[in-house]
């Protein structure tokens, strides 16, 4: 059971990490209801948290499966996570709108 939860957590971290990186890009920021350009501070925050989440996914994968399986799992799960972000941006963009709105208020 903890294995399944960890797997879900790895995927979630990869997905959210790439979602943050995508949001920091002008095109997607605009698409999500922000201005033409993602503000510099927000962009920095998004990029840093995006990379941190990807790193967290790696750490979780190594904890779950050890060095060899863990690194292999991470290297493949992040692709699945990134493809899921692409699908979200294409067909379910409203899932990410609340997060974008929140960041606009904070920024």
């Amino acid at each position, binding site marked *: 059971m903890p294995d399944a939860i960890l797997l879900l957590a790895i995927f979630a971290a990869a997905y959210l990490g790439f979602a943050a990186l995508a949001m920091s*890009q002008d095109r997607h920021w605009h698409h999500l209801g922000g201005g033409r350009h993602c503000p510099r501070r927000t962009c920095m925050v998004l990029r840093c948290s995006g990379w941190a989440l990807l790193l967290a996914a790696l750490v979780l994968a190594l904890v779950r499966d050890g060095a*060899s399986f863990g690194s292999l799992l991470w290297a493949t799960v992040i692709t699945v996570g990134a493809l899921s972000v692409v699908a979200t941006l294409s067909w379910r963009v409203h899932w990410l709108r609340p997060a974008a709105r929140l960041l606009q208020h904070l920024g």
Partner: protein
Amino acid sequence: MEQGFRASMNWLHTWSGVVLGGLLFAIFWMGTLSVFDREIDRWMAPMIRLPAAEKTFSLEVLRPLYEAAAAAKSPFFSVGLPTDRDAAIRVLWREPSGPVHRFIDPGTGVMLPDPGTLAGTRFIFPFHYMLHIRFQDIGLWLVGLAGMAMMVLCVSGVIIHRKIFTDFFTFRPEKKPRRLILDLHNVTGVLGLPFHFLISLSGLVIFWATYFPSSWQVTYNGDRLAFFADAYGNVIPKGRSGEPGGMASFDAMAAEARRLWDGSALRYVFVRNPGDAKSVMQIGRLDEGIVSSTYDAAYFDGPTGALISYRNGTAPVMSTQRFLSGLHFIQFHHWSLRWIYFVLGLAGCVLIATGYLFWLESRRKKHAQLGLKGVRIVEGLAVGSVTGMLIATGAFFVVNRLLPLGASAWGQDRAALEVWTFYLVWLATFAQAWARPQRAWMGQCWTVAALASAAVLLNWITTGDQLLRSLSHRHLWPIAGMDILLLAGAAFAAVAALRLSRLSRIGRVRHA
């Protein structure tokens, strides 16, 4: 300079893609299916849909078949032992009439009826790495060429991508077909790059001794056996003595092998020269807990059962090769990774297919204006290698459920008839695509949907394992998984066909 370099990479990417795309798609598709080769075996050979094997069964159940192999003077007697994915024992030896494959139920020791199919492990998986072209290893070399081309395509694709970071997450399904296809090609290519590169590289590394033969040929003076003895620790086989000889207890040797590896499970049993006084028994270790594909084996003298030698662990030089092979073969126990491989393999198929489509869409108009034939030729090639490959696979599954056990026609046995169906149907899809290019994509998508649904229905009718039943029995989950994927594939193909027919209607209105 910059412009010239990018242009030349663009040329390389375009033309190696167009020329080798069909081959690459076939290899990627069959490789993706091979991820579940043993599950496909269970689907195609209903007699091996057995509950999980008891952990302890006597290897002596093999004795009668061993005696048969010895009587036939077979050069070998090979046994694959049950694993988590495979409940039956697989036995192979050679009769004068040809190789004999049999399954044994480890619970009862009963030999199961000949399934009459090559199924996943003997058709789909070998197709993936050697295209079933054995002559002069041509199949192996073609796959190697395609693997090398895939790496070239990965690298040149990154170089010619103008906005790799801006477009990193960009897929715009509402755009025009040409833009949409390029988006999809870019997204699957860039995001899938780590997997596609690694899987092509590791695929090449598996056959390094074939693809880069000069290194060992020079060092070992062309002595293949001596080289393999050093690299893989194989014991150089002794010839037949011609004297008859017995075979010591299978169970005693297996127990000794397990003891040598601290109680590890066993993967296979392989006897060289069965029935001969110089027979050698080789027992292989099963290690599903690591990525590396280990090749630990113990060798016993057949008649006495005395240990000759054994290996435990991999030499440093080979450990990288074994790790890369292992991550390609996925014989380890890790279901999440297995499914991820399957999904990323499909992403690779999408990548190759969209590459073709983009080539076609960006030239269609121009070629029509100039009266060139290129688009038509490549379109036939693309249709046949993409949807045609899916149709041939679907026909392979359908005919497997239609032919009764023991069927034969035109001097071909059941397994051969299935393979003939695959190739003839595949050929027909190319013919159709070249003869009627306007409706080829749509028609073939409908055919894929029809064949995939028919396969599920026929599995129900012929075996009674419909989805509710297979989902409620643990040992039938592979069947449920295959049925669900077939239904999902059918739905996907039907949606694609509907979209295409809508597009062609809009196109016709616009032209009128």
